[in-house]
């Protein structure tokens, strides 16, 4: 099964406010807030680390979540954000378009 790599789009604006990540896509002004688990995935989206490693190291370890459930939730989250142009998804490493 191919790896999934994720990187943040350069079209977004983002900032952490009291544990919640605010993300806005400048192309269509879609505004999101991410919870702490989603924020951890989003912050780790450097284009180089495979999604399953992010889930294991940033989600399961920090939030004590079952790996199977975490992987499934992460895939759903990544699909949703990529549909809004906020995350770039590929089966090969990507160049991250933003600073952390």
């Amino acid at each position, binding site marked *: 099964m191919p790896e999934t790599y994720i990187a943040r789009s350069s079209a977004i*604006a983002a900032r952490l*406010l009291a544990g919640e990540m605010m993300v806005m896509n400048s192309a269509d002004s879609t505004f999101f*807030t991410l919870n702490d688990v989603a924020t951890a995935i989003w912050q780790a989206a450097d284009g180089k680390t495979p999604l399953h490693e992010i889930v294991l190291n940033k989600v399961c370890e920090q939030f004590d979540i079952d790996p199977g459930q975490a992987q499934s939730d992460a895939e759903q989250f990544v699909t949703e954000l990529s549909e809004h142009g906020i995350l770039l998804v590929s089966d090969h490493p990507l160049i991250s378009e933003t600073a952390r």
Partner: protein
Amino acid sequence: MSLMAEMGQKAFDLGAPIAVHLDVTYRCNERCVHCYLDHDDHGEMTTTEIKRVLDELAEAGVFFLTFSGGEVFMRRDFFELLEHARRLLFNVKVKTNAVMIGEAEAAKLRALNIDSIQISVYSHRAAVHDAITKLPHSFERTIKAVRFLRDQGLRVSIANVLMTANLHDHYGVQKLAAELGVHYTLDPTITPMMDGDMSVLALRVPGEELEEVFKNPALVPNQEEFCAPPKSPTAEDLEGYPCSAGHSFCYISPYGDVFPCVQFPLPTGNVRRQKFVDIWNHSPQMNEVRSIQAKDLSVCSSCSHVASCSRCPGLAFMEGNMRGPSTADCEKSFYRTGMPTANMQRQGLSKLGGSRPRTMAPLVQIQPVGIPA
């Protein structure tokens, strides 16, 4: 409440600076008759200094960043500042007269993924616009830039400051914005000069003329609610705060001075000498501003409009007391609802007008234009 409004409220409740307006210069290529700024350069922050300030703002949690001036493109490093701001993931809005924006600049702005760009247009008639900006051909250049920016797919908004010199032209500007396919906003606020000179206030639209604006459904869609008589304030209203100035928003001048708002010239610190976050958290002036609740207002706390008035604490400050009334907002409340304010009653007035200076004649002869269908 929208998600964005929820986050704005959260920032307000936490006292977190979610939005900052940064003027990168007071220099300008126009000399607008109503402008409150002195256009000389008294020692603007350098590129390095502004980049450091942007780093500090990002660290402090600022999300919405407005770049304005003066005219932002008078700075040769403006794109460098924009690039730095976008690298830091700010949501960036730019306010400009757009005179210096050509096709190449519009494309660069698009590539930087800014949120939106607001452009000042005073009239749909070149002669009136140019007479206000005092820059020949500025109308033609500005509108050309609006088209370039729109064609890039940028979110463009025309800001129409309303004053005696362009009183009836808002219909025409609104129609022009619709033809261009861009947003339109109207602002009747004329601010005293930063040095305290009040002479520009002669350009403020008289209250009775504002009534016409407030009753125009094209400008104010929720007529009934907007013009309804004020409801009696509740205990919760009296515990409320006037606006976001100093609570979740502040202003930084090209010289690094930090104020609660663009329209609130109370110095609270300087980012050349202090870290932004220290000014935000510890400035006695900032803390004083954010401590003021509606119940603390000397006249307005007993006014029936207190819960719904647009009272600007900065304009009140410029009238001499940040806890006092702002006459311009008293006028708006009165002409919006027909109900006199406590400030008017205190002065024995049941209707405003007559006492305000009306010395400045329109700059060019303006004939009212037809209302667009």
